[in-house]
């Protein structure tokens, strides 16, 4: 299947330090890829480079075959490259329904309308109800975000991203900071993501990575040192050395 998302030879240095060193990867619709790596490996820089929040020194980013390297961050979202945030970025005084409605309206080019209210737009409300229902937030739909639990806020992050109907979704640690008791709901939401959506997840929780991903990419010092199946990742000596040492050893001991 042809690539929906492609990164070619992406390079970026800060001073003499290469934080992205010739990174290349391609993803097809429906891919479930986990990007892992130790702290300082360049994962956040990679996300910032592909989302247009940082300019690469060289290299290319393509979505659906179109070169978007010179397209700004907003233009990339409009072309279907959507991200969620590691630290929840939601509007505390707005409700989950308002968040999702705003994303739907923005996607449809109606967010600049000066009159009308989303509550009175049946098509918007139907989509809001559907997404909120799928993510189990119906009871919190009209409560302010500051009043709902953190795990539910993480689910809302995913709902907002999905409301934009992405072609490629970058999930930045979707389960970060969520109590163990609530991670099941997040995992379920990840399992229920649209099958044709290409998903790249950055995650530290290796259990979640192994359950979610069908392909794992390991980044260390700005370079991809492994790109393969989850079953092979722990066997790779470079990965063990760079990142998974203690986890792999623990796995063997068990």
């Amino acid at each position, binding site marked *: 299947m042809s690539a929906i998302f492609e990164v070619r030879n992406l390079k970026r240095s800060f001073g003499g330090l290469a934080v992205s060193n010739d990174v290349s990867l391609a993803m097809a619709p429906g891919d479930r890829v986990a990007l892992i790596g130790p702290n300082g490996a360049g994962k956040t820089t990679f996300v910032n480079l592909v989302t247009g929040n940082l300019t690469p020194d060289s290299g290319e980013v393509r979505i659906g075959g179109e070169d978007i390297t010179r397209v700004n961050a907003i233009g990339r979202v409009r072309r279907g490259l959507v991200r969620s945030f590691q630290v929840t970025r939601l509007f505390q*005084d707005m409700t989950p329904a308002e968040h999702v409605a705003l994303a739907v309206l923005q996607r449809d080019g109606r967010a600049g309308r000066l009159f009308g209210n989303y509550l009175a737009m049946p098509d918007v409300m139907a989509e809001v109800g559907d997404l909120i229902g799928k993510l189990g937030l119906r009871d919190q739909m009209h409560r302010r975000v500051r009043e709902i639990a953190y795990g539910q806020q993480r689910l809302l992050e995913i709902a907002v991203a999905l409301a934009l109907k992405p072609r490629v979704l970058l999930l930045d640690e979707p389960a970060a900071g969520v109590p163990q008791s609530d991670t099941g709901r997040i995992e379920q939401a990840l399992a229920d993501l649209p099958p044709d959506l290409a998903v790249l997840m950055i995650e530290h929780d290796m259990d979640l990575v192994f359950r979610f991903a069908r392909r794992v990419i390991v980044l260390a010092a700005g370079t991809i040192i492994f790109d393969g199946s989850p079953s092979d990742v722990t066997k790779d000596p470079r990965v063990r050395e760079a990142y998974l040492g203690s986890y792999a050893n623990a796995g063997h001991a068990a």
Partner: protein
Amino acid sequence: MTMATMNDALAAARGNRRKLGRDLAGLAVILALAVVGYLLFPNNLALLTRMTAIALLVLSLDLVTGYCGVATLGHAALFGTGAYAAGIAAVHFGITDPLLMLGCGILGGIVAGLLCGVVILRAHGLPQLVLSIALIHLFHEFANKASSWTGGSDGLAGIAPDPLLGLFAFDLWGRTAYVFGIVLLAVVFTLLRLVVRSPFGMLCRGIKEDPIRIRAMGASPKVTLMKMYMISGAVAGAGGALNAISTQVVGLDSLSFTLSAESLVMLVLGGTGSLFGALTGTIVFMFFEDIVSAANPFHWLTMVGALLIAVVLFAPKGLYGTIAAVATRWREARR
């Protein structure tokens, strides 16, 4: 339709009705206060009309500061430009129909909004505040220097508006100007209530809280804020035009840093991010100023300062904001 969707639709309809009720209540309060003001102060309608014009300025400031989080101490630039646009149209171009003068004021306000927006929105926080102060001084100085058009420090006099709709002359007691001002305020208030609840209003509230999140949704904070600045310019320009029509003179004080700062004080006093707050702040501040300055001409500024300190310390959400928060808590406790 599933049961859940039906419940959502019912909740949405209830929410809509509640908001419509608040809109009508707000409109009723404005009109009731206008009638009370007319009956209580029949000889001081000029003050009430001035209050109405300033209320439009404070509403306009609330749009950019309260709803979008833009820090500005130069908002009178929009108001003053509207006033001068209406005044110059009348004095230099013979456009003396009050509604056309109002149109000129609105247009002038929009242009000033565009100019100020382009400059102010390039920065954030303190630099933004400094830019706004620089702008109001530039506008003031420009009006001062262009004295052949503006009358400079003598003010632009000789504005003689025609009777409103060809029927109601602007009388010495200021009755026509007062009614004109109240109708204008009611119309603007109603339109703004719709705007702040619209998808655009929601986008602005989002930008105030987190512009990065808004960019990640594919919307441009800068374009949205520019649009809001122009709407704000239209509202402030309408206020300036009302002031020009009612007083029949435009002075440099309408383009001053002092007026900009006072309008911000009024907004904070009433409560930012709420149209009711903007109106409350204007009424309380201007009445307090009028009463206290008459009662004690030597120490009235001290008393105004004391009132502000008291409000900021004990009601940080402003007078209306605090009352609204208490009412919400009370409603939730009863549930």
